[in-house]
């Protein structure tokens, strides 16, 4: 107590802080900081999305155990047969089992998403924080470069790279990752610049924190929630992009199954086997959607629990 005159008639002035009348919510205990996981699991849409992604990963890993047929095994006697008890999703123009190809296709999609997003994250996040924190000419230079990269049609770049380096999914995904880098850069830079002007960053410099500590301890936690969202959206974009490339015949090499190449088959047999169009498309759609919802849920949870606010 410094200058407060405590009226002895009042009960419990003992620890009454100067500057605040204790309200009903001013309990002396530490506020229970909701665990990140608990916080994430509070939203039903997030849980559903997470379960879907988990299942998808399990399916991808256990594809050989789950698939009823060899996805590349041709049987021209049963070409383009509709769904049946033996082939739940029917067969394609080489008589291959669509369900098995769908199951194996999840491997390509997830791996492609991971590669492209990984590249974009590893390049974009640090560069973004650097540009936002350091500012000046570095910021101008990096921003210019990233804007130019962002103006490059991603598929055009991927196509070019495939043209030059040959087919196969890895090169194409590196290209997609490169094109997605500016997204991470921009969000990281904007987040950094937002807090860069907050007084508490200046305060941390004023009390002698090293640049490294300021960046990692005070800036990065503020940049992460939006980055999580960008990661999830980018995973979706990459899955879509892989499908587009394989659809054009520029992605996976036949006969490797991928959702995109399955759609290619479907498109050339549209009048004979319209049922082939649905499963791969729906899988791409659900995967992209699940990534988005999961990312949004995690971002919300991070924003909530880290700031110590109840909301």
């Amino acid at each position, binding site marked *: 107590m410094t200058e407060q005159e405590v009226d002895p008639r009042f009960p419990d002035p003992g620890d009454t802080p100067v500057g605040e009348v204790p309200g009903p919510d001013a309990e002396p205990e530490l506020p229970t900081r909701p665990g990140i996981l608990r916080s994430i699991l509070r939203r039903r849409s997030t849980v559903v999305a997470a379960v879907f992604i988990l299942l998808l990963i399990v399916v991808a890993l256990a594809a050989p155990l789950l698939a009823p047929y060899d996805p590349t095994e041709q049987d021209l006697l049963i070409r383009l047969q509709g769904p049946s008890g033996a082939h739940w999703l029917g067969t394609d123009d080489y008589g291959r089992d669509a369900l098995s190809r769908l199951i194996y296709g999840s491997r390509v999609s997830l791996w492609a998403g991971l590669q492209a997003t990984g590249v974009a994250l590893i390049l974009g996040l640090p560069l973004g924080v650097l540009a936002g924190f350091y500012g000046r000419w570095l910021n101008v230079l990096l921003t210019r470069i990233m804007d*130019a990269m*962002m*103006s*490059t*049609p*991603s*598929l*055009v770049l991927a*196509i*070019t*790279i*495939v*043209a*030059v*380096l040959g087919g196969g999914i890895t090169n194409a995904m590196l290209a997609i990752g490169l094109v997605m880098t500016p997204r991470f850069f921009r969000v990281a830079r904007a987040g950094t610049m937002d807090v860069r002007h907050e007084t508490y960053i200046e305060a941390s410099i004023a009390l002698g924190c090293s640049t490294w500590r300021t960046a990692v301890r005070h800036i990065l936690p503020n940049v992460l929630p939006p980055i999580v969202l960008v990661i999830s959206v980018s995973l*979706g974009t990459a899955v*879509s992009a892989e*499908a*587009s490339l394989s*659809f*054009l*015949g*520029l992605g996976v090499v036949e006969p490797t199954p991928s959702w995109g190449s399955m*759609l290619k088959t*479907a*498109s050339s047999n*549209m*009048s004979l086997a*319209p049922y082939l*169009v*649905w499963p*791969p*498309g729906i899988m*791409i*759609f*659900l995967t*992209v*959607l699940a990534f*988005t919802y999961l990312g949004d849920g995690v971002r919300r949870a991070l924003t909530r629990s880290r700031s110590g606010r109840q909301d």
Partner: protein
Amino acid sequence: MLRYAGRRLLAAIPLLFVVPLLVFILIDRAPGDQAVVLAGENPTPERIASIREQLGLDDPLIVRYFDWVVHAIRGDLGTSLLSDQRVIDLLLRRMATTMSLVLVAMVMAVLVGAVLAILSAMRPGGFFDRFINWAASVAIAIPAFWFGLVLASLFAVTYQIFPPFGYQPMSEGFGTWLSYLVLPGIALGLLPAAEVALQLRSALGQVLKTDYVLNAEAKGLSRPTIVMKHGLKNAAIPVITVLGFRVAEVLAGSVTIEIVYNMPGLGQLAVDSVQNRDIPVLLGFVLFSTIVVVLVNLLVDISYGYFNPKVRS
């Protein structure tokens, strides 16, 4: 204002040179002898030599690049390795198809997206607002080319409302032209439309919380006036920025849509050129894409001047 536009144009021009340069570097770094790779299976030595000569593969990278630039500025983009036609002719012949498709898709995206966002913002948190928010975030997850396939199979194959495939130029009549573009346009425009709706709604949400909107309320202006006059002009800025970047993606998306609908556009040309390693055509396509992107971004920059008076001064 003009000076401002000129400055922006000046700043954008380097992109036109840098992107092709990147392609040149990529080609240079590619494994194997380009000429052998490009000549395809069982090449004759003459064919290899002629490709080598045509691409100038014996010259150093920088010489080849400058050679290409000098020719490109004169409008000469070389000849296709596949068909021996001039690349510029190939591009020009197919440009109208692609541009029509992109135009229809973008116009639809902006109109539909903006209308939905404005209607949502009239009653924040209302049923329509929440529904549009949900629908748009779901729509974003739909892959465009698959959506195109589904639309084609439903409305062109099963119920033959629209012509299934191909393209007719505007000289065949506006209705005909449009009828070929409706389905691919919707397929290509769905994603940007959803994005415009979400972005503009969120930007409007921010703007409608500002003091000057409260002031507009205090002046007794009507809700539509507030949203349309005081909200829209300020909310448009972030949306237009995104739209500028989005054009590049729509252009890229047009490649798959053209394949789905079998439209004789640049996308098909590009895919053919890749499958046949027709480098001059590919370079032409890349240059064309870049020019479009640069022009669109220039438009975006100029429009800032209209929406944000601070930029002008």
